[in-house]
């Protein structure tokens, strides 16, 4: 037992030396998470506002001007241009100077004055589906509101009192993230992706490297066991992954105001299990990959992309095809994203998150054992 710990210690010590002498890798594992966090939080926001809007007013009456002001007044639309013909919409959409166009037909004012239903055309650039969808929803809502206020003012002008008429007014409240701020939603999930990248990518090349250097043979003639080598290699990366996690959490809370509503203990346990599962996955790649290049690409394919696309980080899992939903189950990132969001945003604890924690624990164990097994089979062949 003591001899075993000595060997593991020697490997860990050596791995730290490799890392400290490799400035590029060191910079990558420390700076990458921060850069990614800033990128996601600032650049890759899913929030939509100030959508450039073009107005083509064929009516040119006080009624149409008032209608246009409703768009200008909302923070969602920003009227950037006024046009005279529909052709200008095409040009503006092509040049990306506008994403939404509001076309008010001639006779708009007259129709309203007559108490009839007036029609306006709202054209939306659908090439960016997310903002197109939201633009559509906003313009429908805006028109409904405008419709209501017009009805009221029309009734008042006719001397009618509408206050006696029953009406349904929905009061919608969003829980956990009331402003529906996508940064707050993204950062807890981002934590999982950052851990996956740092750990899987780096450990993926570590055993391949021993083989490429020829040092693997020297280790084979020593009494060191395969699992000792793996554990020794995992420890430094576990520490670095934890530093990254803490860094992302602190940045997320301090700079972006992400709330931490649950117990940090559950988050720490979840992170630890996820780190081990990811490292195990990296070792598995390392054990089977013939070269460092292959290991890198495999790490990208099975760690980065799935944890990005199939974890629920960017796209809700219940909105992706069923087959992909099953597929996402074999990558540990989705469990971590659930745990992270649960703890951060919903204040969930062991009672709610034990299935995910248990899955990650099993995953980590299986990965390291399978990696040790496959690594051993590859040697001495």
């Amino acid at each position, binding site marked *: 037992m003591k001899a075993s710990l*000595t060997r593991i210690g*020697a490997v860990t010590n050596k791995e730290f030396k490799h890392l400290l002498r490799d400035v590029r890798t060191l910079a990558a594992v420390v700076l990458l998470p921060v850069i990614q966090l800033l990128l996601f939080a600032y650049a890759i926001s899913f929030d939509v506002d100030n959508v450039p809007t073009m107005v083509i007013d064929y009516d040119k009456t006080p009624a149409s001007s008032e209608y246009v002001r409703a768009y200008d007044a909302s923070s969602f639309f920003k009227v950037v241009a006024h046009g005279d013909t529909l052709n200008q919409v095409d040009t503006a959409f092509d040049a990306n100077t506008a994403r939404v166009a509001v076309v008010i037909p001639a006779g708009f004012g007259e129709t309203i004055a007559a108490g009839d239903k007036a029609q306006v055309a709202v054209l939306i650039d659908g090439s960016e589906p997310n903002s197109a969808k939201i633009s559509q929803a906003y313009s429908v809502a805006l028109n409904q509101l405008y419709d209501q206020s017009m009805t009221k003012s029309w009734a008042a002008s006719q001397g009618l009192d509408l206050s006696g008429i029953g009406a349904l007014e929905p009061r919608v409240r969003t829980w956990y993230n009331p402003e529906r701020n996508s940064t707050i939603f993204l950062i807890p999930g981002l934590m999982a992706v950052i851990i996956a990248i740092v750990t899987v990518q780096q450990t993926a090349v570590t055993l391949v490297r021993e083989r490429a250097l020829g040092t693997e043979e020297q*280790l084979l003639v020593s009494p060191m066991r395969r699992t000792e080598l793996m554990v020794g290699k995992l420890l430094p990366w576990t520490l670095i992954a934890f530093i990254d996690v803490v860094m992302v959490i602190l940045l997320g809370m301090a700079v972006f105001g992400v709330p931490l509503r649950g117990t940090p203990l559950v988050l720490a346990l979840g992170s630890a299990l996820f780190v081990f599962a990811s490292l195990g996955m990296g070792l598995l790649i390392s054990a089977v990959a013939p070269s460092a290049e292959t290991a890198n690409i495999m790490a990208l394919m099975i760690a980065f992309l799935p944890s990005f696309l199939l974890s629920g980080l960017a796209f809700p899992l219940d909105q992706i095809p069923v087959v992909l939903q099953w597929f996402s189950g074999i990558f540990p990132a989705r469990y971590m994203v659930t745990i992270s969001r649960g703890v951060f945003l919903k204040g969930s604890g062991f009672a709610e998150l034990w299935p995910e924690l248990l899955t990650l624990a099993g995953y980590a164990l299986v990965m390291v054992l399978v990696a040790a097994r496959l690594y051993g089979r590859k040697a001495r062949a």
Partner: protein
Amino acid sequence: MQSTSPGTSAISARGLHKSFGTTEAVIDLDLDVATGAVYGLLGPDGAGKSTLIRMIATVLTPDAGAAEVFGHSVTDQRGKVTPRIGYMSQRFSMYPDLSVAENLEFFATVRGVSRADRNSRAKSLLESMGLAEFANRQAQHLSGGMKQKLMLASTLMHSPDLLLLDEPTTGVDPVSRREFWRILAGLHREGRTVLVATPYMDEAERCTHIAFLDRGRIRQSGTPEQIKAQVPGRLLEVASAEPRRTLAAVVALPGVDSAHLFGDLVRVLWTGAADPIEALTAGLGGTDASLTVRTANIDMETVFAYLAENAPADAAAVSS
């Protein structure tokens, strides 16, 4: 060191066989290396030297056959074999970004050498090999010869009884090669057994035993003297102004077994009954006034050239 009484077997292999795909690297090979021997494995690239050494070093599993190191199986008792062997692979296999001292420290630690022994052995090994002043230099910045010495030092840190060295001097300058063999001679005096592969025929002279490998099989084995004794006759060197013409003339003479160019000299293997110096001087005389004939010692180069020419058909391709 344990049980190093002379005469007991350090390596005993029977029917070792290993193929890679369709290539048979080692074929039904038997090998016996006595404790205390410096056993040279000679042969061209691809002869199977590395494969044989790697199987004995436990890092490669044979397809068939068995090998024992100090009486322990290299396949079923690896744990008993590895503490007593030091294996040096053909290619440089230390961590390039670790220093000389750190490499020694790491490999000795995983091999279970105590801290006190690690420090004292690293110090004395580095000093005896002239590496002391480079202890803190990263391995990647060492010269070829120094790299080989670092590898040898690393294989000696746990004081093994048997050294398995796979072409330790290939690609190393002549001075470093001599230096390396001086260190091996010291290890031999300490009673350690050495199995060393080399493509250099001159290094065979420094071995107590040699085996010549070609295409997976041992073609010849024995002491250097026994091997040399297989060459009949005497070796002579003929110096002349025009060696090529002399060579053409020499092979036609009766009593000459074979002849070849050796630098500016013509080397002649004489199996005739007459005195070779007289016969050759007489046979070639008159054509060249500067012609001189003298006897030379048969060296390994000549032995393997002879053996190659007189080998069975399937072992014809022998080179140095």
